[in-house]
C-alpha cells in the first residue's frame, strides 16, 4: 500500500548539530489504527514508538508538532510516553493541542495491586469451595423450611391459595412437555426393545421381553427420562424467570406489595411439578411401552394382544406406584433446586447464565441421587 498523506510518520532532520523531529500525518486513533486496526497497524505503531523513543533519547532534539494533520489523546500519549512523562526542552505545537498534554499530565494511576504469590491459595480455594457448598446447603434448607410454612398456610386456607399460578405451571411444565417426552420415550422404547430382543432370541426367551420392558420402563426409565427432560426444560425456565425477576427488581416489587414470593412463586412451582411430573411419567411409560411393542412385533413377531395380556402378570402394580411416587419427589426436587438457584442470581448477565447452568446440572444430579435412594429403599418391593 502506498504511503498516503494522512499516514502518521516522523521526519527527522539533522541541522546545526541538533536533530529536528517533525510529526506529519494523522496522529489520532483513526490514522494510527488505519481505520480498523489489525496486525499491519500494530507493526506500524511499534515502529513509530521505536522511532519516537530513539528521538527522545536525544535531549537536545527539537520537536515540531505544528505540521501534524490531526492529533488526539492517543497520539499525544505515544509522544508523552516516549518523552518519559514530561515535555521536552524544545517543543513547538499548536495552541489547540496544548490541552491534550495538560490532560495527560493529570492521569492518575490506581495503585497497582500487589501481585504476591500465595502458597496456600489451593488450600484456601478448597476451603472457599467448601464454605460455598455449605452456604448452598443452608440456603436450600431455608427454602425447604419456607416451603413447609407455605404449604401449611395453603392447607389451612386452600381457597386463598395460588391456584392460577399452580394451573399455569402445570400447563407450562406438563401439558407443553407432552410432545417432547412422547418423542423421546417412543424412541427409547424402540431402542431398548430392539437391542434386548436380539439377546433374548439367542436363548429362545422371546416372551420375557414383556417382563424386561415392563419393569425397566415403568419402574426406572420412564420416571428418570421424564425427570431429566423436565429438569432441562422447565428447571432452566424457572431459574431464568426468577433470575430476571431479581434483575428487574420484580421480586422486590412483590415484597413491598406484601405478596410473599415463597407463597406465590415458589410453592406453586413445586406443587405444579409434583403434580405434573407423575402424569408426564404415566404418559412417557405408555408411549415407551408402545415403542417397545412395535419393535417387538417387528423383531420377534410378538403380537400386540399378547403383550397386553402378559404385561399385568409380568409387572406387579407396585412398580407403577413406585414410579409415580418417584415422579412426585423428582418434580418437587427439580422445582426447589431451580428456585434455589434462581433466587441467588445477581444482577448481571454472566450470573444469569451460570445460575441456569448450575440449576440444570444440580437438579439432574439430585434426581439421580434420589433415584438411587429409591432403588435401595424399595429393593424388595415389586420385583
Amino acid at each position, binding site marked *: 500500500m502506498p504511503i*498516503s498523506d494522512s499516514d502518521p510518520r516522523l521526519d527527522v532532520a539533522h541541522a546545526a548539530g541538533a536533530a529536528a523531529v517533525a510529526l506529519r500525518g*494523522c496522529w489520532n486513533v483513526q490514522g*494510527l489504527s488505519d*481505520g480498523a486496526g489489525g496486525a499491519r497497524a500494530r507493526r506500524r*505503531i511499534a515502529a513509530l514508538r521505536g522511532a519516537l523513543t530513539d528521538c527522545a533519547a536525544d535531549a537536545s532534539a527539537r520537536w515540531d508538532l505544528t505540521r501534524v494533520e*490531526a492529533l*488526539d489523546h*492517543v497520539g499525544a500519549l505515544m509522544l508523552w510516553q516516549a518523552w518519559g512523562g514530561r515535555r521536552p526542552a524544545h517543543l513547538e505545537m499548536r495552541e489547540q493541542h496544548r490541552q491534550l498534554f495538560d490532560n495527560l499530565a493529570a492521569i*492518575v494511576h490506581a495503585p497497582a495491586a500487589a501481585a504476591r504469590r500465595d502458597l496456600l491459595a489451593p488450600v484456601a480455594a478448597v476451603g472457599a469451595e467448601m464454605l460455598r457448598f455449605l452456604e448452598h446447603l443452608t440456603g436450600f434448607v431455608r427454602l425447604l423450611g419456607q416451603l413447609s410454612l407455605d404449604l401449611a398456610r395453603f392447607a389451612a386456607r386452600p381457597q386463598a391459595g395460588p391456584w392460577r399460578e399452580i394451573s399455569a405451571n402445570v400447563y407450562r411444565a406438563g401439558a407443553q412437555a407432552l410432545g417432547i417426552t412422547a418423542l423421546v420415550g417412543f424412541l427409547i422404547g424402540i431402542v431398548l426393545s430392539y437391542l434386548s430382543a436380539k439377546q433374548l432370541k439367542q436363548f429362545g426367551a422371546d416372551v420375557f421381553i414383556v417382563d424386561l420392558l415392563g419393569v425397566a420402563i415403568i419402574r426406572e426409565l420412564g420416571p428418570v427420562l421424564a425427570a431429566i427432560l423436565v429438569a432441562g426444560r422447565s428447571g432452566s425456565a424457572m431459574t431464568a424467570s426468577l433470575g430476571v425477576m431479581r434483575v428487574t427488581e420484580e421480586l422486590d416489587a412483590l415484597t413491598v406489595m406484601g405478596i410473599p414470593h415463597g407463597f406465590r412463586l415458589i410453592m406453586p412451582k413445586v406443587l405444579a411439578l409434583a403434580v405434573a411430573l407423575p402424569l408426564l411419567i404415566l404418559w412417557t411409560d405408555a408411549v415407551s411401552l408402545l415403542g417397545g411393542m412395535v419393535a417387538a412385533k417387528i423383531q420377534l413377531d410378538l403380537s400386540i394382544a399378547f403383550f397386553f395380556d402378559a404385561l399385568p402378570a409380568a409387572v406387579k402394580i407396585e412398580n407403577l406406584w413406585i414410579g409415580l411416587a418417584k415422579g412426585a419427589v423428582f418434580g418437587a426436587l427439580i422445582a426447589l433446586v431451580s428456585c434455589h438457584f434462581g433466587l441467588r442470581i445477581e444482577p448481571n448477565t454472566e450470573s444469569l447464565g451460570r445460575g441456569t447452568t448450575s440449576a440444570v446440572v444440580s437438579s439432574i444430579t439430585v434426581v439421580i441421587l434420589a433415584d438411587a435412594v429409591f432403588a435401595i429403599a424399595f429393593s424388595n418391593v415389586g420385583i
Partner: protein
Amino acid sequence: MAATAHSDDYVIEIEGLWTRFGDFVVHRGVDLKVRAGEILALVGGSGSGKTTLLRQMLGLETPHQGSVRVFGQRLDTADTVALRALRNRWGVLFQEGALYSALPVFDNIALPLRELKCFDEALIRDIVHLKLAMVGIEARHAAKMPADLSGGMVKRIALARALALEPELVFLDEPTAGLDPDRSDSFVALIRSLHRELKLTVVMVTHDLDTLFELTTCVAVLADQKVIANAPVREVIAIPHPFIKTFFLGERAQRAIEVIRDYPFVV
C-alpha cells in the same frame, strides 16, 4: 483514508426517510442534516420515533425508504469493512449505559481499544485512566463491576467508553434521564467541556429542557411524522406549532426558560 473531519461538511444527512411499523407510519419523509461541531438535540412527543431515528442513524435499523448517510457513507449499502471503520469514528451512550456487566469498569473502556488489536497494553492502560479522569471517575473505581456502581457513575463510565476511540461523533440517548438535578448539571457541563476540547459533533435525544437550553446549538423537532424544525432553540420557540407550544411554552418550560443562562456558545 478519511481520517480528519472536514469542518464544513455535514456529518449526518438523512433524506426522505420513511419508517413503518405494520400500517403505522412513524416517519413520513424525514429530512435532517447535522453539521460537524454541532450539538443537536432531537425532541418530540412519546412515540414520535426519536429513538427509532437514532437507531437508524446508528445502522441498528434500516428505514423502509430514504437514505441515511453518516460521514458521507450510506449505512444500508456500506460493506462490512467500511461499516466497521465508520463505527470506529462514532461513540454511543445508551440510555441505561449498556456497560458489559460481565466485565469490570477498566475492561469495559479498554474493550474498543483492544478490539483494534494494534495498541499495546501499556498505552491502553494510560488511555483508560485518561478517559476515567476526563469523566471525573477516580482510578480506584476501575476494578469495580458495573453492578456495584450508582446510576450516575454508570452513565459517566459509559460516556468514557463511548469516547475511548476519540470519536468525531457522539450519540447520546437521554443522557440526563435518571440523574438527580445536581448530577445532570455536572453531566451537561462534562459534555460541554468535552465538546469544546475534543471538537465533537453531538447528536442526542432528550426530554430535559434544561439540557436543551444549556447545551444545544440546534434543536430538531419531530412532529407530524416529520422534522418540522431544525434551528437554534430560540428560533424554534418562535415557531407557531401546537407541539412546540406545549413542549417549550408549557408551565414547566416557562420555569426552565426563566432560569436560562445566557451561555455564549461558540462552535
